[in-house]
């Protein structure tokens, strides 16, 4: 747990509570959850659909708050995260923890009452997975933290789908798997160009522990696996050609950028890491575009 000394005089601004929920990450969570919900074959009342997405967003925000509460010490030594409310001393850690618990518990309860307890149970598992399994257990212990922890980010489309249909079928599991296999190359591309930050914080990220070359090979491996996996929804008849062709094109670009990163040799300290930054940027566009194609395909089919 963090030991940040906070001689707080000023009350905490609401914007700092908002920042605690990691709004940028939440936007991807909301988007993929919404896509899962829209792509599902069943329709639910728009108010309930809105409630389901709200619960997923609030749950993700709660998990993010708990993550930042636990990692405040680590965040303080990393340039990328040092300005967050807790390491910057703008917030009392207990307030952050309680905020995270209230958001997490509230989102699960509302999901259960308004939508259904299967969706609520998966939401609860996803929060626990991110806040405890990933943050507390995996991240500080193993360089495979991102691989297993990637499951946390893979839950939103599954929850969105289950909220709409009330059951778990092959399609939402495939969507889960796509995000699961997308996460390692996405984060390792980032880890390659902020390696020194992770090393300083003592986080055993792949480039710090196994070295750059091993990380590059693993990025390439996951990108190769992602190509056929992204097309599975089309193969199993869950989507039409709009999604299928989009998935092939998007994944081929992802693979091409990963090859550039994968075949690079050890670089000088002042290398700009341009291919790695391009892969990281494309990985975000990739996921947005892939799920947008899923929705577009559903709208075309219907």
């Amino acid at each position, binding site marked *: 747990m963090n030991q940040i000394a906070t001689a707080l005089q000023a*009350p905490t601004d*609401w914007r700092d509570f908002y920042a605690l929920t990691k709004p940028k990450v939440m936007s991807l969570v909301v988007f993929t959850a919404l896509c899962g919900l829209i792509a599902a074959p069943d329709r639910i009342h728009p*108010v*309930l659909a809105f*409630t389901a997405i709200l619960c997923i967003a609030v749950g993700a925000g709660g998990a993010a708050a708990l993550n930042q509460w636990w990692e405040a010490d680590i965040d303080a030594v990393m340039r990328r995260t040092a300005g967050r409310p807790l390491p910057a001393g703008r917030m009392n850690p207990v307030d952050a923890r309680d905020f995270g618990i209230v958001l997490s518990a509230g989102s699960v309860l509302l999901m259960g009452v308004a939508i259904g307890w299967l969706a609520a149970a998966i939401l609860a598992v996803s929060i626990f997975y991110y806040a405890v399994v990933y943050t507390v257990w995996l991240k500080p212990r193993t360089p495979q933290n991102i691989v297993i922890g990637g499951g946390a980010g893979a839950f939103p489309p599954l929850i969105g789908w289950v909220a709409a249909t009330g059951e778990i079928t092959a399609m939402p599991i495939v969507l889960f798997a796509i995000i699961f296999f997308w996460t390692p190359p996405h984060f390792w591309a980032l880890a390659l160009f902020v390696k020194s930050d992770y090393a300083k914080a003592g986080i055993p990220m792949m480039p710090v522990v196994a070295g750059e070359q091993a990380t590059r090979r693993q990025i390439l491996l996951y990108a190769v696996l992602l190509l056929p996996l992204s097309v599975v929804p089309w193969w199993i008849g869950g989507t039409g050609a709009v999604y299928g062709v989009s998935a092939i094109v998007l994944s081929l670009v992802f693979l091409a950028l990963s090859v550039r990163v994968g075949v690079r040799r050890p670089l000088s300290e002042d290398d700009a890491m341009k291919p790695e930054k391009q892969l990281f940027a494309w990985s975000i566009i990739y996921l947005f575009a892939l799920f947008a194609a899923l929705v577009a395909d559903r709208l075309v089919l219907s």
Partner: protein
Amino acid sequence: MAQDPNPDHDRIKRSRNMVMALALGGFVILVYFISIAKMG
């Protein structure tokens, strides 16, 4: 009640209370519409 001598603190508290009121109000409205949707 004791007044906070720092006007900036008062401003932060006011804006936080406003956001809290909006969130609670929004929640009440949401529960109302959820009830209507579940009954329909």
